[in-house]
């Protein structure tokens, strides 16, 4: 079932035969996936299919048990130096935002540039403010996360990830914890980022957004990649019956 990958030398993310187990339970089986620079990949699938696990393996929030993960030319192994390199190149946006509640929005943004990138406070502040403008909430810089709406918090989280000037952005169900009326403001920001050429790997159930933004769709089930196809083909002529059933369910209402 797993489609074989054409060898592409300029892939920024390359997974080959990746395995992940929780005890006896196989969370990921034989995952092969290449992502090109600037490509937008959207991963969908039923819950428990391993989408989040897959994306969390890419910056080693989960440690894979077998196979090979190469991000931006660096192989992910136990080496902490490699890990630091990869993490500074890969930004992540979480379902629950995970902003630091004891810091203002601005401090949330400038912490990593100052500590990891060794920027001065003023440099970091300049970057942070320009990013807050980009996600359209510069006026919230001095507030605490709890004073913001969910949509605003998630936009701050996106800005925080961007502050490190990552080459790749990972989104783990970024709109699933949001009230319905706030989903579009977050998706708009993400679509804008996509149009600017950011490499994005995104787990989401927002199929309208996927159709508009994705270059490549990946459908996962039971820890395996069932289907990987260009967006139009994926939605119009899905090959696997499992993909067809999933799409019918998710698009029928």
């Amino acid at each position, binding site marked *: 079932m797993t489609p074989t990958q054409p060898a592409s030398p300029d892939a920024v993310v390359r997974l080959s035969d990746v395995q992940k187990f929780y005890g006896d339970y196989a969370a990921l089986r034989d995952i092969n996936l290449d992502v090109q620079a600037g490509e937008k990949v959207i991963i969908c699938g039923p819950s428990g299919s391993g989408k989040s696990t897959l994306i969390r393996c890419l910056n080693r929030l989960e440690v894979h048990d077998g196979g090979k993960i190469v991000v931006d030319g660096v192989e992910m192994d136990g080496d902490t130096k490699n890990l630091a390199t990869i*993490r500074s190149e890969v930004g992540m946006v979480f379902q629950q935002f*995970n902003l630091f509640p004891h810091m203002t929005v601005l401090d949330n943004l400038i912490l990593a540039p100052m500590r*990891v990138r060794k920027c001065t406070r003023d440099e970091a502040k300049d970057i942070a403010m320009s990013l807050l403008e980009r996600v359209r909430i510069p006026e919230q810089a001095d507030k605490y996360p709890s004073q913001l709406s969910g949509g605003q918090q998630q936009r701050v989280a996106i800005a925080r990830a961007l502050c490190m000037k990552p080459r790749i952005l990972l989104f783990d169900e970024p709109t699933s914890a949001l009230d319905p009326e706030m989903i579009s403001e977050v998706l708009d920001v993400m679509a804008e980022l996509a149009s600017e050429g950011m490499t994005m790997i995104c787990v989401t159930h927002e199929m309208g957004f996927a159709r508009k933004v994705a270059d490549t769709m990946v459908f996962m089930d039971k820890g395996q990649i069932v289907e990987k196809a260009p967006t139009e083909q994926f939605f119009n002529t899905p090959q696997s019956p499992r993909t067809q059933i999933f799409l019918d369910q998710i698009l029928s209402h």
Partner: protein
Amino acid sequence: MLNITRFGLLLTACLLLSGCAESNYTWGWHIVSPFDARGQTNLQFLMNGVFSTISVALVSITCSVILGLLVALPSLSKNKPLLFLSRIYVEVFRAVPMLVLILWVYYGVPVLTGLQLSVFFAGVIALALCDSAFEAEIFRAGLQSIEDGQREAADALGLSYGDKLRFIILPQAVRRVLPPLGNQFVYMLKASSLLSVIGYSELTRRANELVVVEYRPLEIYTLLVLEYLVLILLASWCVRKLEHRLARSDRTATR
């Protein structure tokens, strides 16, 4: 705050009155009266112990908080040997009675090491060791109460382990454990009275010494109770102030 003070004073007054009613005891308050020459000297002698009580409690709580934090830190990792060591430490020092450890450190350590410890130093070691087991448990609960998402966000940003601890986990954990830490400080103020047995000249020791001279245990120990009451109410008040200040600058979790 005011209500507690009023209640405490009322309680003391009731105790004193009932004492008067039930026996033919003749009160000898003059021995600690500020309006009597001898009373003044005695009073001053007793009250001066407060500095020793406060200083030994402050130094001990500082040491025990640092020790407790160090012992609790392995709970963030999955390092089995470290976790085991920290567990053993807590179990041992939680099991030893404070008074016993005080005696052991003061009389035992010099024999073991040939090093003569001052009463202050011996007291600090014993109090800090005993208390650190409880501080460790408090910190462990605090550290583990920080959501996984906070750690993951720090990791994803590429923060080092030390930065993650310093900027993300500890500031949030400390805010959460401040009320129990305050309680421990109050407890430490009271526990310092145990140091009277090794001759550390704090409030209780001085009261004991004066009782031997004046044969007025009721008056002197009543005054001692009042001294601790005032001291501890003041300390609780300060701790609460600090909590309020942190609570104002703190914003609770984002969800």
